[in-house]
């Protein structure tokens, strides 16, 4: 287990290094950040002054060297546009994104798994077919459309929920959290539901497929014959054996939602990470993009690590090496 962890850590460092190189290379093609910061009629002297202030007067290689050097000392660089440390910009927006993502995956798991078990155990029923058609909608409807429709119905038409923003938030250990206030919850519902739909549909379909496979197994019939309740068999024996692919997909989806909740955040004017990424790309703000993507890579590596551990809990036959 320790060896496994160390191996994973080494892999992680390698992945992060690769991301930093790729982003640095890519950013040299996406335009000159100086022109995003200064007035366009600046003279050459003013442009040079701005380059010096931003540290862009050196060669690409030298800039990368400085970046890595600072990184090793825990300094992730400053945004060209904001002038603030890039890490600070990201961390101050992370809690908002985590809130809608966590709520979204909870909604997805709580709704998808029972429905998937039901549809998998009773494939012939009309209700199962209805569930499956519904999940197709969940996969195929684009998030921005669903978001706009929810705003139109729940905010503009029925005046039930606010259309956008984060509402009241309270501060806990320096983090702004909105799920501790009623107003915050009212703001959370629509974006979280929008964000959960795609994941919900995928989880549902995978759970169902796994359950259909598993219910045909002899040990299921045997357990029933021994007198275990139907419910006990489905969840205790069936779901447990169908869960491995569900957990895999769940982990990938979680990482995906944290990193790329952009569209949902834009539609609901949710003050999360996604908008920062888009704005930074538009403004060629390299320090922010580098740190953002490295953080995303880190999140994926960590989630995969956790998923591997969860495998061993679900199925004791699996060990990590």
């Amino acid at each position: 287990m320790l060896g496994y962890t160390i191996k994973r850590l080494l892999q992680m460092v390698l992945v992060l290094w690769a991301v930093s190189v790729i982003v640095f290379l890519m950013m040299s093609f996406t335009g000159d950040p100086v022109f995003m910061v200064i007035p366009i009629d600046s003279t050459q002297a003013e442009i040079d002054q701005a380059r010096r202030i931003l540290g862009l007067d050196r060669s690409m290689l030298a800039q990368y060297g400085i970046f890595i050097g600072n990184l090793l000392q825990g300094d992730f660089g400053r945004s060209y546009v904001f002038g603030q440390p890039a890490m600070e910009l990201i961390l101050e927006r992370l809690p908002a994104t985590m809130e809608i993502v966590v709520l979204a995956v909870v909604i997805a798991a709580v709704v998808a798994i029972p429905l998937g078990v039901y549809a998998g155990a009773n494939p012939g029923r009309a209700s199962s077919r209805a569930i499956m058609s519904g999940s197709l909608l969940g996969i195929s409807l684009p998030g921005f459309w669903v978001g706009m429709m929810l705003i139109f119905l729940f905010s503009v038409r029925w005046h039930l929920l606010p259309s956008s923003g984060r509402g009241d938030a309270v501060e806990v250990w320096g983090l702004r959290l909105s799920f501790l206030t009623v107003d915050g919850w009212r703001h959370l519902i629509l974006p979280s539901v929008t964000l959960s739909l795609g994941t919900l549909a995928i989880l549902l379909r995978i759970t169902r497929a796994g359950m259909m496979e598993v219910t045909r197994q002899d040990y299921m019939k045997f357990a029933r014959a021994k007198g275990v309740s139907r419910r006990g068999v489905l969840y205790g024996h069936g779901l447990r054996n169908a869960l491995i692919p569900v957990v895999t997909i769940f982990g990938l989806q979680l990482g995906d939602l944290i990193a790329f909740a952009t569209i949902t955040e834009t539609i609901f004017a949710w003050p999360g990470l996604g908008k920062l990424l888009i704005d930074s790309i538009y403004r060629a703000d390299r320090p922010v993009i580098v740190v953002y993507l490295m953080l995303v890579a880190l999140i994926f590596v960590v989630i995969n690590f956790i998923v591997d551990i969860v495998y061993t809990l679900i199925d004791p036959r699996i060990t990590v090496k």
Partner: protein
Amino acid sequence: MICSRTGAWRLLLGSAAIALAAAGAVEAKDLKVGLTSDAVHFDPQAGEELSSNIMFYHVYDPLVRRDADLNFGPGLAESWELTDDTTWVFHLRPGVRFHDGSDFKASDVVFTIDRLKASLMANLGANIVSATAIDDLTVEIKTPFPYAALPNDLAAILILSEAHVKAVGDTELDSSPMGTGPYKLGEWIKEDHITLLANPDYYMGAPKIDTVTFRPITNPATRTAALLTGELDIVQDLAVRDVDRVKGEAGFTVVTRPSLLNIVLAMDMREKSPTIALDKNPMTDHRVREAIARAIDVDTISAVIMNGLSTPSEQFVPASHVGYLPGADFHAMYPFDVEAAEQLMADAGYADGFTMTLDATNNRYVNDAQIGQALASMLAKIDIDLQLNLMPKSNFFGYIRVPSDNSSFIMSGWDVPSGDAGSMYSVLYYTRDVKEGYGQVNRGSYSNPALDALIDQADSTPRIEERAGYLRDATRILLDDIPMIPVHYEQDIYAARDGVVFTPRTDKFLWAYDMDVAE
């Protein structure tokens, strides 16, 4: 940090509201504004874009004030005069206080200008050599040459408190700004909202609106929805497709105003042009430039692509500007006429046309990519095969930069909030590489000694009427020479609920001090 005060502010606001209600006093007025994006800075010398600019003018004041219609008048300076051709003396308004109660003094002006010259925004102070405090309420400003438009330039320089900046430090000014302006920063939750609180001691009188909340909502449809649900009182940049919807709703008004942003097409005038595979650049011939101008139908662009929400531009600067030539209209001089354009092309020896590339943005101006496509089909009628090279703005401004080795034909936008054509003409049309600070964005390498001379003359008189005269003559030359084709001004579109008293500003800087709300 601002965030840590959240709870306290809410408590304060809450108890203030209760106290007022109990006393039966006038109800506190508040206004909620929907912006297209969050402010980036509260430090006016750290960068500029519209949302930040809007915040700057709430918190800080300039020496010279620019009103909604681009008229310039006294601000923190009550009056000013010239002592010699390059020396201006500004008399500061006595009794003005910063938000922290300290007095506004001449040393703050000097500090502001010195700090500006070393900042990313040094360009704003390009025509200032030095500022010196004569006494607490008198500042002397020197220009590098006689420069009549100095007061206009000063309208863009916002005065900082020397003591405050030194106390909080350069990088922290963004999160704890302090000026003399009509509002103070209450709280700023990034990407969520900015709350400004009225400064009751403002030197022009306390603002009518007590609390202003700005919410950045990037998605235009969400902005409209938030207005219709009553979450916002007024929104900026209403989407064109929502105009009819909002007009049809009872209780809401749509307000439009032509902006200052002039979309222009710059033509390369060098002997050899990068994207034209001919030995001689056809656009060096006036007839070809005129043919291109006549082949472009600005009215169709306005009606079809801009849904009527653009105003064809008559000249390079709007009528409110110093240097505007009354009565002259580019599109009346060279009206849309394909046959005449074809004839001009034939006369110039290009009856078979030629191929060149248009460099344009696809995310900077309203419908910029569609305008590019329309230009391609319009120029095809006179056999100019216009290739489109569209790119995001982050690439564009580096790509087209002088010496513009890649470009023959460029579409970009230009606005002159200083209200003075000279600041545009000197950087855009003055011969390149002959004078520092002149011609640095002359992307087409246009050069006309007569025009250079007029700009030199304009920049050698400290008297604004003389300057205006020279610049009007310059406008005449530019309209004749056609170094660029002016296309249109975009229109700013706002929507507000009834009861919001609001007049849009030409410079787009929403200013709550000028606004009021009636319940």
